[in-house]
């Protein structure tokens, strides 16, 4: 059974076709990468999968549920956007608390543990506006990891991360993979993608084309 399934997805903006019948399947414990040139529609595809953008035609299913862009996503989907959406006037922990309040299924202690897991200090009283880009990225990863996701969508996850951060991200991806999580990564760092992905697609002229990993190395 596919965890993420797109079939015949079309998206156009003002007569400009962004996606032309995109189909994609990803199963549990699979890391799928999507690469492509700038403006090819990679981020749009990610926004469609998580219901933030509507489609003109086609069906998007995640965890067996059809995604409707006005409804809440089914529980178990984590998303890391670039840059991550954070409230600059709050601390890292406060940001997580605000988001966790929506579904009210994580305690403050669990959130503190989560922050420590991504390499940040839960006692840090600095506001997010004082964070470095790498720290913001780590906090974005923590948001995606909330509520034990079974599907994680990542938009340029290595942007702004130092070598230590990238190494920690790789460890985290392999840990998620071994726990059965399906991961979809959108990036233009080919080497990083080749290192972590099981399957890679290239976005070309609004279509997804499967690309052999060996050709990227």
């Amino acid at each position: 059974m596919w965890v993420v399934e797109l079939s015949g997805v079309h998206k156009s903006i003002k007569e400009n076709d962004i996606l032309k019948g995109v189909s994609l399947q990803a199963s549990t414990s699979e890391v799928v990468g999507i690469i492509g040139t700038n403006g090819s529609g990679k981020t749009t595809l990610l926004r469609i999968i998580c219901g933030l953008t509507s489609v003109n035609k086609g069906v998007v299913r995640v965890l067996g549920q059809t995604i409707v862009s006005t409804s809440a996503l089914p529980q178990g989907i984590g998303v890391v956007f670039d840059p991550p959406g954070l409230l600059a006037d709050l601390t890292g922990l406060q940001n997580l608390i605000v988001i966790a309040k929506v579904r009210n299924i994580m305690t403050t202690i669990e959130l503190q543990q989560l922050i420590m897991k991504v390499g940040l200090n839960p006692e840090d009283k600095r506001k997010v506006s004082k964070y470095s880009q790498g720290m913001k990225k780590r906090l974005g990863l923590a948001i995606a990891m909330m509520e034990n996701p079974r599907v994680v969508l990542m938009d340029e996850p290595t942007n702004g991360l130092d070598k230590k951060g990238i190494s920690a991200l790789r460890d985290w991806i392999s840990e998620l993979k071994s726990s059965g999580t399906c991961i979809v990564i959108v990036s233009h760092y080919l080497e990083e993608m080749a290192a972590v992905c099981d399957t890679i697609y290239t976005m070309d002229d609004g279509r997804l084309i499967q690309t052999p990993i060996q050709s990227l190395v």
Partner: protein
Amino acid sequence: MITVSGYIGIQLGNLSFKTAPHEFNSWYVYLQVFGMNFNSIWGVMVPLFAALPFGDTLIYDLNHGFEVPLIMRCGMKRYFFTKWLANIIVIACVSCAVLSCSLIMALLWRRDIKMPTIMSATDSPFSGVYLSSYQPHVLNGLFWTHPAVYSLIPIVIGVLVCISIGSITMVASLFSKKRYLILAAPFIFYMLFNVAVQVIGLYLWVPFVMSAGFLEFQYSILPTIFYWSPILLFSWIATHFGPNRYREFKLALSNSSDSND
């Protein structure tokens, strides 16, 4: 600020017109502070007061991308409606506090809560305030019999005026990313509305008057409610179209940033 400037205006008015002392008992002073006779700050600046407390809440989220984790967890329609509701609740609390403080200050300042004896059916002891028998305004009689209870009504009406005008920021947030423009949007709308109504020739129905007309007994409660409620209704309806507008707004944004990588 409104209250203090209102009291200064009333004092100056008192000196200029040598009004009888009973004209300025606590209840009447409280009403006049917000009226246009002695103090035009409320009437002119009410859109800014209404926008400032929480008017930028939606655009703050959108500009920081913070709406994404929230929308994913609660859905777009619920997110936009909650933002609209939170905005009007905050405006209601702030405007209620301002009007209540003004009432307390009027009581402390004048220390005169006795209503004057009505001498005849035609002469009102207050300039601009008519007896209910001659001006059939709903609840006007309450001012004469129970001024303390009546004083709570302007608070409710003032809150309605504030939330109606303040909710315009939610609509503006769907069309602009500029925070200060959004905070100024109710004021711009208010001014354009004033001009439009005057061009049509409905001078008594301009928002300047309608924001404070009730306080000065020019209008009754019902016309005031019917005047301001459609604006609140409009902003509520606009939040239903928020998700559609949001998707195109953010899509254009993500595509432009994607191209600029």
